[in-house]
């Protein structure tokens, strides 16, 4: 997630300028302008969320590849079995859907609020944005970034 901090800083800078404009629009009682600014902020949230998501997804993929390599190279068949189906060098990790990649590096049974559950919820958020179906009024991108670092800390390779 080497670019996550930079993306978050850029987002914050842009959102601050939107907030300055919005505060002025509220002060001027200019409702149409306030609404236009809020719409821009929502689009900006979604765009930056997807950029941040890409960083986490790449982290999960890298950890998943590392786990596959480690298990494939284990001389103990009990550790190796099941993992020889996958090619860690293949660009798209074909045959391994995203939720299974996550389950290889995070505990799927950890329950509600766990890093696994959060990744799946954020993945659905990303999908909803991609299809124009997200109903949120805003995304707290800074909060999402903080969450992503917690998830990163929980990932096992």
């Amino acid at each position, binding site marked *: 997630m080497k670019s996550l901090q930079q993306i978050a800083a850029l987002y914050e800078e842009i959102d*601050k300028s939107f907030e300055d404009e919005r*505060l002025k629009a509220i002060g001027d009682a200019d409702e149409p302008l306030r609404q236009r600014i809020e719409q821009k902020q929502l689009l900006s949230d979604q765009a930056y969320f997807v950029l941040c998501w890409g960083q986490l997804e790449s982290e999960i993929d890298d950890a998943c590849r590392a786990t596959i390599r480690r298990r494939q190279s284990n001389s103990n068949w009990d550790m190796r079995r099941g993992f020889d189906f996958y090619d860690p060098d293949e660009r798209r990790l074909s045959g391994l859907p995203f939720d299974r990649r996550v389950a290889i590096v995070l505990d799927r049974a950890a329950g*509600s609020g766990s890093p696994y559950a959060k990744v799946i919820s954020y993945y659905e958020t990303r999908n909803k944005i991609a299809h124009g179906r997200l109903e949120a009024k805003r995304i707290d991108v*800074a909060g999402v970034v903080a969450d992503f670092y917690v998830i990163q800390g929980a990932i096992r390779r």
Partner: protein
Amino acid sequence: MAARTVLEELTEEDALSPEYVGQRLDDWAARVEALYGEIERWLPAGWTARRGSAVTMHEELMQKSNVPARKLPTLEIVHDAKVQIQIRPYGLWIIGANGRLDLIAQGELFFLLDHAKTFERPSWQITPAKSPRSFKPFDEKQLRNLLRA
């Protein structure tokens, strides 16, 4: 009703029923009203609060669920016959918070966010918009700091 975050709420089900959306709105209106009541009780002598012009709430989820727009009151805190602080409901479905209000004090914008899960007792936190992760619990002390500013 099971408590969950807005992130979970918006991603665990394909569609939320209009009844559920209505319950969430009732809960939001009640939380805003309770917060205003608390703020009024915290005000020192010489300060008063009054309801300002209402804001219309018609978020994406309400539109998709065919739930009509609602009006929510704003709060104005007055001293020396001048509005010193204005509080406006901003939105309910925010990924990362269970609702947000804007608080404007002396030309500076603050966010008032509820960090509790849905249908739980509110946990109001305040942060300046220019430093959006500097959360502090919003309590009488924080309000008095704003009044002194």
